[in-house]
């Protein structure tokens, strides 16, 4: 079936929702496609309170932010939401997005502007036995625990000491699961100091320059063989040791889900600081394809706060391009840009700043 809309938003996480919120009241016909049965994206798994500025809901729990945004967007008459609907491909000659609803119904969706806010997917690690039952990505563990109230296991080893590894370890602990250790391949802990201090206080050891070499078990995970790494990330022979556990959780980073952007033939670049392949974009989140905007983790893996700001900017920019602008649109965009810049300031923002420098193009397309 054919559907026509003015602005198509792919992905109903914080980025997509904020983009939709920017378009409220413009009279533009906005459509959100979300493959999950609910809006909110990653936020729904996040039971902890957010940091940052008040405008970005600091002090509120992640899933509550998701609920607030969802209510705002769903109350609006010019926004339609299709849940359990996957944007499965862009067809350049026919110029539509093909969407599959509930694995049954196909839609050809025509649009004037599209905002791709598909988020990121979890990375995995290569080691012997990595397909044994009991080995999860951190996102899956969070989904099981925080959304469905299911404990993934009793006795866990966490791989990765970035913020996700630290936060999920803490949440596991709160749920009464034993977290044996956090292993980190790098020489230093990746996440924020406060998060690391919190898990250490609870008695979870963090071993740097250590990784998993093999997973052992008959029908499910029973133990892992861990090993030390030298400064060149090579195994140190003779340091292998076996630890029993029933669950191994991999929190080794995310990479942008940029498949649709490749299909749009946006100019792409591999930027390790941003998690993988990302599209080049200008300050208003427009890619090298003039009708395609990006926002959130798909434009570079970062945080919900930046995703919300980018979504806001992309939404207003699309409205402006379609000549549905509030008088103050440039001012609003500049405000969000200012917040983003502030977020990226200082030593913590350095990595992202370096990454962005590689994909931001000056020209207004």
């Amino acid at each position, binding site marked *: 079936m054919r559907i026509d809309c003015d602005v198509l938003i792919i992905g109903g996480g914080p980025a997509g929702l904020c983009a939709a919120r920017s378009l409220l009241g413009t009279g533009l016909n906005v459509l959100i496609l979300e493959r999950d049965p609910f809006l909110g994206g990653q936020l729904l798994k996040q039971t902890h309170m957010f940091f940052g500025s008040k405008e970005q809901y600091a002090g509120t729990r992640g899933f509550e932010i998701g609920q607030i945004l969802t209510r705002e967007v769903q109350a609006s008459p010019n926004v339609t939401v299709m849940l359990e609907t996957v944007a499965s*491909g862009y*067809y*350049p*000659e*026919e110029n*539509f997005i*093909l969407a599959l609803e509930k694995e049954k119904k196909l839609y*050809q969706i025509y649009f004037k502007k599209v905002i791709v806010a598909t988020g990121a997917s979890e990375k995995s690690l290569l080691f012997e036995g990595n397909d044994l039952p009991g080995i999860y990505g951190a996102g899956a563990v969070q989904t099981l625990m925080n959304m469905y109230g299911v404990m993934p296991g009793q006795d866990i080893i966490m791989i990765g000491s970035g913020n996700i590894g630290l936060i999920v370890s803490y949440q596991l602990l709160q749920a009464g699961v034993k977290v044996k250790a956090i292993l980190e391949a790098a020489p230093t802990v990746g996440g924020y100091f406060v998060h690391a201090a919190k898990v250490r206080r609870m008695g979870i050891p963090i071993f740097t320059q250590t990784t998993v070499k093999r997973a052992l078990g008959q029908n499910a995970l029973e133990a892992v063989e861990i090993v030390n790494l030298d400064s060149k990330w090579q195994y140190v022979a003779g340091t292998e040791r076996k630890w029993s556990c029933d669950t191994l959780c991999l929190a080794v980073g995310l990479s942008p889900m940029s498949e649709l952007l490749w299909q749009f033939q946006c100019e792409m670049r591999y930027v390790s600081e941003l998690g993988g392949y990302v599209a080049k974009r200008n300050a208003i989140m427009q890619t090298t394809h003039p009708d395609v905007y990006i926002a959130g983790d798909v434009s570079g893996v970062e945080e919900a706060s930046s995703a919300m700001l980018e979504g806001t900017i992309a939404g207003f920019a699309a409205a402006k391009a379609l000549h549905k602008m509030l008088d103050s649109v440039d001012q609003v965009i500049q405000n969000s840009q200012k917040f983003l810049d502030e977020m990226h300031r200082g030593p913590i923002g350095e990595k992202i700043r370096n990454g962005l420098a590689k994909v931001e193009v000056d020209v207004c397309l």
Partner: protein
Amino acid sequence: MKNKASVVIVGGGITGVAIAYELIKRGVKDIIVLEKNTLSSGATGRCGAGVRQQWGTEMNLKLSIGSVKRFETLQEELEYPHDIEFSQTGYFMPAYTEKQVEQFKKNITLQRKFGLHVEWLEPSDCRKVVPIIDLKGLMAATYYDKDGHLNPFHTTQAYAMACRRKGVDIELFTELIGIKTEHDSIKAAITSKGVIECDSIVNAAGGWSQIVGNMAGVSIPTYSERHQILITEPIEPLFRPMVMSFYHNFYTQQEPNGAIIMGIGDPNEPKEINVDSTYLFLQKMASVVTTVLPPLKHARVVRQWAGMYNMSPDKTPIIGKTQIKGFYLACGFSGHGFMISPMTSTLIAQMMTNEPLAIPEIETKLDLGRFERGELFVEPSVV
């Protein structure tokens, strides 16, 4: 990259690497293969990789039978440490019109003369070979169980590894951008990474063959035509052979892992360099294939892509010399260049080393000159 070679081969598809292998096997030294992208990035890595011997002319029978013989032992010959996945699960070719029945009868007589035990199937026999086929409109079919399928990536890689071991230089991400000739002879290949002085250049550039021809001032009447293809999720085994219907213009086969690949020809496909995918293809493919093989309507598509057939005016390959001394052509395969690549490469190598040709008549039947002479080749059995 070296700046001198005896032979420069343009194209890192199956044709280019197979030619390099056949040449070095015959003692030719200083061979360079140029590939502007990666190995198998052209039609080779996008193709159905079906191998059939059920052809309607002596020429194509010789090319395909000779090639299958080589495929049977290729993995050992190339000392490839992996599996090129050659499986002989047959081709099933249904007929839906009187005319097709007549043609298939003629074909089978000729095929049997060449020693192929092709079976003639009445509609009531067809489900023994393809249990899920709908019999509506089906008038007869031919089936040959020694036709088959390979993995095109592994096969290309197998040739390439053997080439490198024997000393061929394969230059990836290196594009031929010009050809220098003098007194109607090849002098040098001009590439994006420098000039290579050489005596011979082989045009195995697939969908770009006409462009490479122009570089040498040789007008090749080939053109590129997009063909689309899709693959489903792996499902339980439903049928073994490639099912190829000329009437519906499609082919489909279940791969060893259970995934089903299928493609359909469409006269409206763009005749240009274009590998975009369309929804129209998805729709058309799905509606046609599910009328012939109804259970496939439950299979979910996981991926679709497109490649280019390099078409010649008579849908038959161009293999041979040109008016420029040292400039050889192996192109215009019109959608079946993979299955005959062992013979294509052998013939080109024999030609370049002045050996007697395995199929001597190619010199007057598959050469470029046939178009000027108005001697088009007629093959009745093409999709």
